[in-house]
């Protein structure tokens, strides 16, 4: 029946929005609150996805691990794994301007992609990892989809709540002070570096969690499952459009951008086959253009960070 199909589709969309919402929240800690440029979001996402899959899936002679542990352990492992990769990168790059962090995170994502492609014993090679368990996976299809959707939304809300608390605490106020006043930040010296590192690692852990949410939703993963640059880029647009520095903005951005992105696919799918392949790239072009337009005309996003929290022009509103 069409309506069931529609509901299933809506559930799917909702789940993906929830997952991207978690990613956007992770980026908000790094960029929105701390001003750190992470261009390798997809890398941390992939690490989380693979780790959680390997921890929870059943063993296979072709690859390592497959510990069949509870999903919650997988999620924790995903967060820890992403954090562990972020830590040394942050240690090395956070002393410099964010341009260096950007190139280093692009590099991390690239290396992670190389490892996953090359080390078949780790990633299951081209076939990837299958049989990843899903919470509520035993239920009937629609119900299972819906239950998982509810779970993702619950996780999103928990992450949101935890971050809001963290931001309201002295930690959050200090982060924003550091972001907005380089000089004052420099005067605080080593302490600043530590705070930034905490933000970077925390954000990466949240991205790893999003990867875990994704893999248990899809129940399988291959190295080609996500286009790293497009995924990274979508998250950036979500945050900037929604409002950097504002957690609700991040979630709003995830909703809007994912809907636009999926709708555009919907439209291009209707096109004749010859131009359909081109159409994918036209979509990428348009999403890039969208970023330029937002940066130019509404850099503060739809839900700007509450004024008063902002002490100086980090992303000053356009005149």
């Amino acid at each position, binding site marked *: 029946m069409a309506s069931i199909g529609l509901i299933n589709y809506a559930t799917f969309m909702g789940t993906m929005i929830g997952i991207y919402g978690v990613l956007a929240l992770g980026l908000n800690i790094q960029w929105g609150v701390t001003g750190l440029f992470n261009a390798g979001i997809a890398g941390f996402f992939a690490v989380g996805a693979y780790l959680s899959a390997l921890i929870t899936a059943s063993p296979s002679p072709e690859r390592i691990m497959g510990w069949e542990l509870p999903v919650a352990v997988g999620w924790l492992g995903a967060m820890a794994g992403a954090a562990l990769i972020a830590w040394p990168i942050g240690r090395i790059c956070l002393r410099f301007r964010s341009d260096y962090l*950007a190139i280093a995170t692009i590099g991390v994502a*690239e290396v992670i992609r190389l490892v996953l492609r*090359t080390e078949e014993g780790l990633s299951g090679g081209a076939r990837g990892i299958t049989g990843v368990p899903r919470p509520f996976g035993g239920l009937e299809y629609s119900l299972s989809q819906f239950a998982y959707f509810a779970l993702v939304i619950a996780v999103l809300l928990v992450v949101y709540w935890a971050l809001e608390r963290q931001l309201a605490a002295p930690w959050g106020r200090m982060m924003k002070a550091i972001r907005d006043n380089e000089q004052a930040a420099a005067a605080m010296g080593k302490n600043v570096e530590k705070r930034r590192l905490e933000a970077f690692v925390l954000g990466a852990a949240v991205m790893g969690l999003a990867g875990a949410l994704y893999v248990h939703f899809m129940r399988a993963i291959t190295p080609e499952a996500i286009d790293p640059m497009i995924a990274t880029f979508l998250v950036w647009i979500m945050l*900037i459009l929604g409002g950097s520095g504002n957690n609700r903005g991040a979630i709003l951005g995830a909703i809007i951008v994912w809907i636009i992105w999926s709708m555009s696919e919907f439209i291009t799918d209707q096109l004749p086959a010859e131009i359909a392949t081109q159409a994918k790239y*036209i979509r*990428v*072009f348009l999403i890039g253009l969208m970023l330029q337009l937002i940066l130019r005309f509404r*850099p503060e996003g739809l839900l700007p960070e509450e004024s008063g929290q902002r002490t100086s022009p980090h992303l000053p509103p356009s005149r």
Partner: protein
Amino acid sequence: MMEFLNFYVVPGIVTGSIYALGAIGITLIFGILRFGHFAHGDLATSGAYLALGATALLGLTPWAALPVAMLLTALLAYGIHRLFYRHLESRPKILTVIASLGIGMMLRSVVQVVWGVDPLAYGSGIARAQAFGPLMLRPREIATLALTLALVATLLAFLRYSKWGKAMRAMSDNPDLARLCGVDNDGVTRLTWFIVGALAAASGFCLGINTELTTMMGWSAMLSMFAAAVLGGVGRVEGAVVGGLVIGLAEELSVLVVPSPYKSATAFVILLAILLLRPQGIFKGKVL
């Protein structure tokens, strides 16, 4: 020994000079305009495909198409600046960095729409390697090295002796003071984009003629080019050249110690090492 030279050192130097041409652009933008330009690899890709377009439309040989592509890419680079980067000038530089990441994607997708995603080549001529003593060099390799040498020498002479070259160095050295001297900021910016665009096209072209044209080639090479720029010292043209050669050689030699799929991770490891040990690079560049 000869095998070592011909299988590792020669390709390393050729790849290295390609990286050098890209790294010069990155280092000039970093030094003068003060941001990391993440569309640089895709600018190189655009240049390579524009040369391909020129061979097809104008019936030129690849090497004759190169100057055309360099000119067009110079205009393209300046156009991108005017349309997308310029209005971000008064805002924190990191916003331009973000914008450039998006520009890279846009350039890549235009190439993918126009030329498709299957690998292409400039021509099907099979070039035999010629022997120079123990060295075996293909004509295209010799041409790549000669082109790099000529472009680098011209650029260095321009920066050293011409009025506007000095203005570019002054702007990189001390922008406030340069403005006090009456150096026109916009003029230097325009000039920088022209030079950088032309060099990116040359880099992409050489990459294409020595291997093949793929829409991802510039993006994949960008990490190496950035590593080369940082290794040489940000803002240092001669540093970018040395950095490019070191990275190119290191990548080719890396297969002796790690599995070949990890070749492209070499640059990343070197980048982290240099940031850790000597962030100003070999030639004492800027640290932003």
